[in-house]
């Protein structure tokens, strides 16, 4: 088969302080017609830089220091401006990560797609990306569409001029599992339909295993390993690839994976929560409103000391709202939240200091969770002084260093600014800051979502160690089921602000009862091209809870499921 994209020992560098800093170093790859080639690597591996060169784009200040990029027989960087413009969109089209940012907010969908060129009518294109009622949708504005729909529109724009190559830069990062699955399936179907070659950039090995025919693993701008997908996932050759693969949490792990130097994998058993562990936080019938919109609708749960309770759900399921409410940032409109030291249904400022320090929050985005103008030592020191856990300045400094060591960092980092640390290090500092108040409840809101997979494994292990050492009650919020399976003791599945299923992690994962839980699990992508869906997908369903008759109990260990009934069948199957 002829290769349509051919990158020949490409090197890219940017200038900084009078020196060339290499970003990409002698990378070669070929993509055959109709094939999907994935570029995998952690942040800073140069994967996006390579993908952008296919469109003849380089970041400002970067330049080619060697090699060439050929697309459809033409050397991209030797093309005159006019032909380069024809190449972009005409021969190569790109779908970026955040479609919401890629679409012009003040222009109707139809006009934007028409602007992308090509002779295919807009309605046909929208139909092709499986959007419902295309004629009506073409008249809408981008903000009226959901994230998944926006991404479909972006894909429609990319295929408008019938290109030969599609460059997909993290096309589903930031989307929910279920939406991600459907967008990926669409891309795969379109590639087949139109005979497109695709270059897929992703950090998610599950996505890559699902989509790609061939994979190139990159690290610091160099090719680590390149092979067909099946071969790479079955028999990785390089230790780095092995470590990377081993770090990915799996849906069937019964604990956190510990990965060795050579990529060997060992699952650490979960620690048992003692039966008589005291309840740290008890929430009953919580409802939270945003104006007239009800975000959380009658949610109840207990978290015991030393236990990790996971709140799982898609975006918009109300899980972060619950976390904020617990942290005192949003007052619930109904229900009770109790802590051993007092009432949590009041905003943070009205809680007594002794209660405030007991409930602490760790954030999703480590980049914005630390003040860029203050040293990280200061970030940890301040709450120590504020909560009075350290009596005076020297003690606070000493304790801050101790806390930084407790999160497995070098205390010498205390003098650095956040910008001088890596993402994983910043996230650890965020945890250290939360620990400064000596909390017994830690709320971890998607804390590993923005991290690379190997760093994610380290942070999860740290969190697990800390809750054992400090007997923390931990509310772990995540949309990633594989991560949840590894760390959580109990799981609460939320959908549209309502709990649909809850129970011990083992029971819920081995025997998911609610169709929504099953749907989430079926949509999760495992880093294995031959993986069978974790559960068979289930049929359509409708909520059947009414009045006091809400739950179906399964067994005696607290596994219960909200009543539901299959659509097109009158029998309440969940009642069995």
């Amino acid at each position, binding site marked *: 088969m002829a290769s349509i994209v051919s990158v020949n020992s490409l090197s890219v560098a940017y200038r900084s302080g009078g020196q060339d800093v290499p970003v990409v170093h002698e990378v070669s790859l070929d993509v055959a017609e109709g094939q999907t080639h994935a570029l995998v690597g952690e942040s800073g591996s140069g994967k996006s830089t390579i993908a952008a060169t296919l469109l003849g784009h380089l970041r400002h200040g970067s330049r080619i220091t060697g090699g060439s990029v050929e697309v459809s027989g033409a050397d991209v960087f030797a093309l005159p401006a006019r032909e380069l413009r024809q190449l972009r969109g005409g021969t190569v089209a790109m779908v970026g990560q955040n479609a919401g940012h890629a679409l012009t907010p003040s222009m109707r969908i139809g006009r934007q797609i028409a602007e992308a060129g090509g002779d295919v009518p807009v309605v046909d294109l929208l139909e092709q990306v499986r959007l419902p009622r295309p004629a009506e949708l073409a008249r809408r504005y981008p903000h009226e569409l959901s994230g998944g729909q926006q991404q479909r529109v972006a894909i429609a724009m990319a295929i408008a001029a019938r290109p030969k190559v599609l460059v997909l830069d993290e096309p589903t990062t930031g989307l929910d599992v279920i939406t991600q699955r459907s967008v990926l399936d669409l891309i795969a179907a379109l590639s087949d339909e139109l005979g497109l070659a695709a270059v897929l950039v992703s950090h998610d090995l599950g996505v890559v295993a699902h989509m790609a025919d061939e994979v190139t693993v990159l690290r610091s701008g160099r090719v680590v390993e390149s092979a067909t997908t099946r071969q790479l996932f079955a028999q990785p050759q390089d230790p780095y690839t092995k470590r990377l693969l081993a770090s990915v949490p799996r849906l069937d792990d019964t604990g956190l994976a510990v990965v060795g130097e050579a990529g060997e994998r060992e699952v650490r058993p979960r620690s048992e929560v003692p039966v008589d562990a005291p309840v740290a936080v008890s929430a009953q019938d919580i409802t939270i409103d945003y104006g007239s919109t009800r975000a959380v609708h009658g949610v109840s749960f207990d978290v015991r000391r030393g236990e990790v309770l996971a709140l799982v759900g898609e975006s918009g399921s109300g899980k972060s709202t619950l976390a904020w409410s617990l*942290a*005192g*940032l949003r007052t619930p409109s109904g229900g009770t939240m109790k802590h051993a030291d007092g009432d949590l249904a009041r905003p*943070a*400022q009205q*809680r007594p*200091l002794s209660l*405030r*320090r007991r409930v*602490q*929050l760790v*954030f*999703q*985005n480590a980049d*914005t*969770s*630390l*003040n*860029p*103008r*203050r*040293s990280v*030592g*200061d*970030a940890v020191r*301040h*709450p120590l002084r*504020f*909560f009075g856990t350290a009596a005076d*300045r*020297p003690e606070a*400094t000493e304790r801050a260093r101790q806390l930084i060591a407790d999160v497995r960092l070098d205390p010498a980092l*205390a*003098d*650095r*600014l956040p*910008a001088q640390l890596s993402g994983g290090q910043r996230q650890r500092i965020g945890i250290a*800051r939360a620990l400064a*108040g000596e909390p017994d409840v830690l709320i971890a809101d998607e804390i590993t979502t923005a991290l690379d997979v190997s760093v994610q494994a380290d942070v999860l292990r740290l969190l697990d160690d800390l809750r054992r050492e400090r007997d923390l009650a931990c509310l772990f919020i995540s949309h990633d089921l594989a991560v949840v399976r590894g760390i959580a003791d109990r799981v609460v599945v939320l959908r549209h602000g309502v709990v649909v299923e809850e129970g011990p992690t083992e029971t819920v994962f081995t025997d998911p009862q609610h169709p929504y839980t099953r749907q989430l699990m079926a949509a999760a992508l495992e880093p294995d091209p031959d993986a069978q869906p974790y559960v068979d997908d289930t049929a359509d369903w409708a909520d059947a809870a009414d009045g006091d008759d809400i739950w179906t109990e399964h067994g005696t260990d607290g596994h219960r499921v909200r009543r539901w009934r299959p659509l097109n069948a009158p029998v309440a199957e969940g009642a069995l």
Partner: protein
Amino acid sequence: MTTLDTVPPTTVRGARTARAWRTLTSSRTAVIGLAIVAVHVLIALLAPLLTSYDPIANDADHALLGSSWSHWAGTDQYGRDVLTRVLYGGRYALGISVTATLITVALGTVIGCAAALRGGWFDDVLGRVLDAILSIPAVLALLVVVTALGTGPAVIVLAVAIVYVPQVVRVVRGAALAVVPADYVTAARARGESTWSILRREILPNITDVVCVEFAMRASWVVLLISSLSFLGFGADPPTPDWGLMVAENRTAITVVPMASLAPIIALATLVVGLNLAADGLSKAWGVDRIREGS
């Protein structure tokens, strides 16, 4: 131990100051502007040493003289040395302007940050009130205040604050709005910290550059406004040496001794140009700095 503990923050702060200084000196505009302002400040401070004449003593024998070796810029209708009065005149202009600008920017910054942080009805009400004040022309508002409360430095400072605080609030609020959603502000809120402490620790350090530029820019406006007031007779009282007042006094004799009017105009112009250059340079230097160093 104590020494070891106190060193790290200073090194962090030192590095930051060094960087701010480095980017500042890399901008020629900012350096020139600040140099001009510095020269003005020096002259105002050292005026008694630079000249031997008294700026307010009348000397009828030497009235309305042209340029000469003993009077470089001539004398005015009361026989006072024009150059001396120009040198001393900077004291009033700079003193009042700096005080007024400091108060304006400080007030505006606190209110702007608080509005951004508190949000809700506080922000809404404040916004409408500020809109109302903003819709009145600056000179008109000033004249109203001065007519009602009489002249004098304190009144003028107050009047300038009333006129310019809303604009500073607008700018600072905008800058602070970008910082408020950051998770470190949320973390401070979850700790239950007071608004003032969040302002001081988390927000202000991240908008210092905006505030500095705002200060330089407002200062140039305030200098102009205060001189206009003096010219109109609502500012400094005669015989105080003041640029605006000097222009007003000498404009009738502009054909006889043009330097008596021109000299204060030149002084005023250079100061305003200097402040403008400084504001421009600072905003560019620190704005570009963020892109270049990626922080």
